[in-house]
């Protein structure tokens, strides 16, 4: 059994690295994106201020109602609801928002190291026409800015893994079924379980190699810092990759139409790419959009990697992401294995 898995694993790996165009694309594509976005966002084109809001906005402290309302009416300012004060402070510390405000208790926090936070504070203070009256109580938060490119990087890695997993496995298995390769293998002693295991192992290996190269390359280029443990990072990447490969196996389980597989894989990958916070945060999005995003493995992968890399989170801190990815992996793999057929139904 192990010899059979090993030889199919080797055969798949040879296909992966000998297909120069596919191999190159897997590595070069994320570099292009990172370099492109770093050029774009280094030009400081983002001019609006982002204010995190905690507490109930319907229960604004009476004494600061006028000041707060004036602040809210100011132009070029986006108000984003925060889950709680801690997560708001974390975002403020990373310069993801410029000010954190709690209108219910009349408190706000600014980042001492952020010029934009200073200006946002000035705009807030300008809304108080009667300085003699009670105003907001000011607090400060320490922290280092997480540039957009550093925030984007885990998302790009996750997205690259998603495309490699979905298309590298889903499309390849369907193509092999269509061309009769699976039919040929089906009359050998190779069991479906052995075949699927070899495919998963091979793609995991490929993901590990390409992700490591991209990670190392981008770290050298941009001095990205991983604030968490590399072991945690490898684990969350492995779980994320495994869950997305398993998802691809469902698409690849029966179809022999490359057109169908391509369509189904695009149908999966595009919403994941748009809603899994690869490019932008869903903080301001509607609740149902956020709920849908929670169903995607890429969301949990991106979120987990960001928490580790940007916030230095431990495995315990990202336990919900780990659990979600594990459950998804088991469900997808079980469904893919049960549905799998060597060839299209008679």
């Amino acid at each position, binding site marked *: 059994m192990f010899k059979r898995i090993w030889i199919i694993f080797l*055969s798949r790996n040879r296909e992966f690295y000998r297909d120069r165009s596919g191999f190159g694309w897997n590595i070069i594509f994320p570099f292009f994106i990172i370099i492109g976005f770093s050029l774009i966002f280094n030009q400081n084109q983002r001019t609006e201020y982002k204010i995190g809001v905690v507490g109930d906005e319907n229960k604004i402290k009476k004494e600061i109602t006028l000041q707060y309302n004036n602040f809210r009416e100011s132009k070029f300012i986006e108000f984003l609801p925060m889950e709680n004060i801690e997560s708001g402070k974390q975002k403020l510390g990373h310069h993801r928002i410029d000010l954190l405000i709690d209108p219910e208790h009349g408190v706000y926090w600014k980042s001492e190291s952020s010029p934009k936070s200073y200006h946002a504070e000035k705009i807030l203070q300008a809304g108080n026409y009667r300085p003699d009256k009670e105003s907001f109580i000011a607090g400060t938060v320490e922290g280092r800015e997480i540039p957009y490119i550093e925030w984007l990087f885990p998302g790009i890695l996750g997205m690259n893994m998603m495309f490699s997993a979905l298309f590298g496995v889903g499309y390849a298995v369907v193509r092999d079924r269509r*061309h009769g390769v699976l039919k040929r293998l089906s009359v050998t*002693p190779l069991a479906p379980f052995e075949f699927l295991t070899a495919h998963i192992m091979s793609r995991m290996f490929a993901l590990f190699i390409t992700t490591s190269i991209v990670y190392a390359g981008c770290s050298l280029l941009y001095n990205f810092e991983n604030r968490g443990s590399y072991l945690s990072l490898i684990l969350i990447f492995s779980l994320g990759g495994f869950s997305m490969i398993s998802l691809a196996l469902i698409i690849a389980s029966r179809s022999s139409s490359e057109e169908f597989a391509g369509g189904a894989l695009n149908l999966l990958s595009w919403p994941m790419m748009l809603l899994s916070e690869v490019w932008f945060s869903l903080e301001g999005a509607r609740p149902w959009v956020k709920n849908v995003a929670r169903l995607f493995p890429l969301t949990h992968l991106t979120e987990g990697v960001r928490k580790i890399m940007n916030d230095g989170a431990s495995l315990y801190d990202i336990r919900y992401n780990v659990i979600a990815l594990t459950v998804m992996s088991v469900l997808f793999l079980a469904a893919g294995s049960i549905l799998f057929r060597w060839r299209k139904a008679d």
Partner: protein
Amino acid sequence: MTPILEVSDLKKTFPGVKAVDGVSFSIEPGICFGLLGPNGAGKTTTIEIIEGILKPDSGIILYRNEKRGKTFKEEVGIQFQNTELPQYLTVFETLKTFRTLYTRKANLDWIVDVCHLTEILNRDNRKISGGQKQRLLLAIALTNDPELIILDEPTTGLDPQARRHLWDIVKGIKESGRTIILTTHYMEEAEILCDNIAIMDYGKIIDKDSPENLLLKYGDGATISIKSETPEKIINAVSCDVYKIEDTIEIHTNSLNECIQNLAHAGADLSNMTVRTPNLEDVFLKLTGHTLRA
């Protein structure tokens, strides 16, 4: 002698088509058994049921007097009519990959030698000619040192030279004592390679015997072939079996002199006429009423 394979009353229906309709035959060890029939006769369906790829609606298949078990895949070598191979592998890597899938293993040097693959061993399996690919597919079918080898139309699409090359290889494999099941629609191939033949059409076996016995049974008389622009004149002139194959009229007759005299009297142009003894194709025409290459 116990047959290596016995097939009894095999039936398989696809929507609207009875692909296999009560097929039965048995194969003695060490022979080459041919399933002969035109495209759509049910040969490949029968073979795929034996291989375990398709499930029959009914019927029994016994391998060495027992139902096919887990060892069947280990002991049978298969070459499909059309199949692609795992990509980006050399010929040698392809052979090694398939060989590793089996517990039983043939000697790689023997396979390479018998299938004449030495010169292309390091070539990408996608960059070899049609004849070389068929030889590679045959070699893959041998990687498990099989007792029974199933070859589904192995020479379809090959040029005459490549076809004869493959026949020589199959003859060599047969001489090593292995049993071969061969499907083909080439008469010459069946006559050269097969010890026993089952003629199939519309999902049924019409007759089965050795090529010699089939010719003795159905191949009496002579076959006259005439290329004619006025076939009606010929058809009306004779009272025996007449078949039109493309632009040629074929007449099967037991009274050669009488038939030629009738044709001459009818004013048929006999300048392109050829007369030959019957072959398997004539047997097939006689049994089914239509040409094998239809």
